């Protein structure tokens, strides 16, 4: 694993240097690197101690926790967001009491810090999936924390939809459900994709805190090994992995928004 990384770095750096001119020639760079005498060589050997299997296991755990909780968050949050929107002031199913109650619940959940929420709902977690620890046990608190957040983003995205278009559909004899499905969700799709992106990234950072209940993942690794056992090398690599993950999510989200935008 180490060797692969080294070669990879070596190859790309080599190209970079060659492009830059004649600072170093290829063989020279190679020799110095392998002897571990140059600054670069020392930098790379700094990561020799890292257990890459652990690293990739943690990455898989993070992706799993994020993926599964994101899926449930989208399903539940979309439904809650639509209901919030529809019962809101001036909307199709306007209902002051429902809107107030839903709003209050959402705000309450959002005001509790994730770490606390996780501990608070442990009984619920246990009831739902039989355990309140580990990667599995982390999913319910992640969903409970992300659903109200995502629902608010959905509500905001739906509010952006031109009222006139809803009225046009209504004038055509569309049912309420048709208006939600064919007009609201369709017209709000770029806003909804952006909302999913933000939620996915938020979930990545929440997973870091699930280490407390043995949730695992990159954030947990950074904290247990990196911070508590002074393994700065592990800290640096996990943070780099998280950065790449967040970057990839954001870029994918932006690309989808661009693809679906008709403005």
């Amino acid at each position, binding site marked *: 694993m180490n060797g692969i990384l080294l070669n990879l770095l070596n190859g790309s750096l080599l190209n970079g240097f060659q492009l830059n001119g004649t600072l170093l020639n290829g063989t020279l760079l190679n020799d110095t690197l392998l002897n571990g005498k140059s600054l670069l060589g020392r930098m790379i050997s700094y990561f020799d101690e890292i257990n890459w299997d652990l690293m990739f296991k943690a990455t898989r755990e993070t992706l799993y926790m994020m993926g599964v909780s994101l899926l449930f968050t989208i399903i539940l949050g979309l439904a809650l967001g639509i209901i919030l929107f529809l019962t809101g002031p001036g909307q199709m199913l306007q209902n002051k009491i429902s809107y107030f109650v839903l709003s209050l619940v959402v705000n309450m959940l959002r005001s509790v810090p994730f770490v606390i929420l996780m501990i608070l709902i442990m009984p619920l977690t246990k009831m739902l999936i039989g355990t309140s620890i580990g990667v599995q046990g982390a999913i319910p608190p992640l969903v409970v924390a992300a659903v109200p957040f995502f629902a608010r983003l959905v509500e905001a995205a739906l509010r952006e939809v*031109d009222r*006139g*278009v809803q*009225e*046009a*559909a*209504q*004038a*055509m*004899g*569309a*049912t309420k459900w*048709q208006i939600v499905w*064919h*007009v609201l969700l*369709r*017209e709000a*799709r770029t806003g909804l994709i952006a909302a999913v992106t933000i939620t996915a990234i938020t979930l990545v950072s929440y997973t870091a805190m699930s280490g407390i209940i043995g949730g695992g993942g990159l954030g947990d690794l950074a904290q247990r090994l990196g911070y508590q056992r002074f393994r700065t090398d592990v800290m640096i690599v996990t943070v780099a992995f998280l950065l790449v993950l967040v970057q990839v999510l954001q870029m994918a989200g932006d690309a989808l928004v661009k693809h*679906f935008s*008709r*403005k």
Partner: protein
Amino acid sequence: MFVLIELIGIDKEYRAKDRIVTALQHINLTVEKGEIFGVIGRSGAGKSTLLRCVNLLERPTNGKVLVGGQDLTSLKEGELQKERKRIGMIFQHFNLLSTATVEQNIAFPLKLSKLPKKEIAAKVASLLELVGLSQHRKQYPSQLSGGQKQRVGIARALASDPDILLCDEATSALDPQTTESILELLKDINTKLGITILLITHEMGVIRAICDRVAVMDQGEIVEVGDVLDVFLKPQHEVSRQFVSEVADSIDSSAFYNGAGSGGRILRIIFRGEQTYEPVLYETVKETGATFAILQGTVSRMKDTPYGQLVVELRGSDADVDAVVGGLCSRGLEVSVLR
């Protein structure tokens, strides 16, 4: 004549925070099958509210809305949705789906009605043809001009073969030339497809170009209703007079002539229909010993009806002048003595 839309005793109140806004009061209105009926009024007069009461986008506080003899206010939601498919609607700001292409927008009401794909495609193709947008069918609304967007709106409204087309300021966001072409299209739709049109506008030009009858609204009430030509030539209400005077070739028959001419009798003569192009005035005057001077005049068209207005001063003996007035009246012209 068959009455298609009948509004009976409509009131509409909006509850704002601390007060009640009366948008419509005692509205009674009938629209006959096949006509183009215009409602004109200033901004805030209640035109949109009135129009939206016809398909119950807005539910009146009091009163009945009869469409084809059926009281829409008594229908359940599902039945109302079915009836709405028979009433097309177009809007000032078009209200198209921004995420749908031209053809998807036109297909939209058909998709809602769950028509088979094949039927939808055929229908959409013929509608694209009708509004002249066949080349633009794959484009999105953001790529179209205002006039093209309104054509999409019209095609979409016609997709479910409605009997009625409601137009809410359909040309108010368009430039004069585009307005003209859209009005032309609406007129075609009315004559060729036999669709009854109820439109609202704040522009007298729109009324004059395509409407058969007009209602003038002011502060939530209808203050005058009649054939467009009648209202145009002889407005009864102050608001109607203001709208008429906004049109370039209207004649101001009030104070203007008091100092004009040489003391003869001043007449206002109104020609309607084909008579407008006949030498009626000359022939009438020729039979007597009188002469005349034209002080002001216009010849124009109201929708497809030619009409003319002349303000003339007759000179000659009282007997001759009386004979001219009598002669004009007996030839079917409307004559009023201004002085």
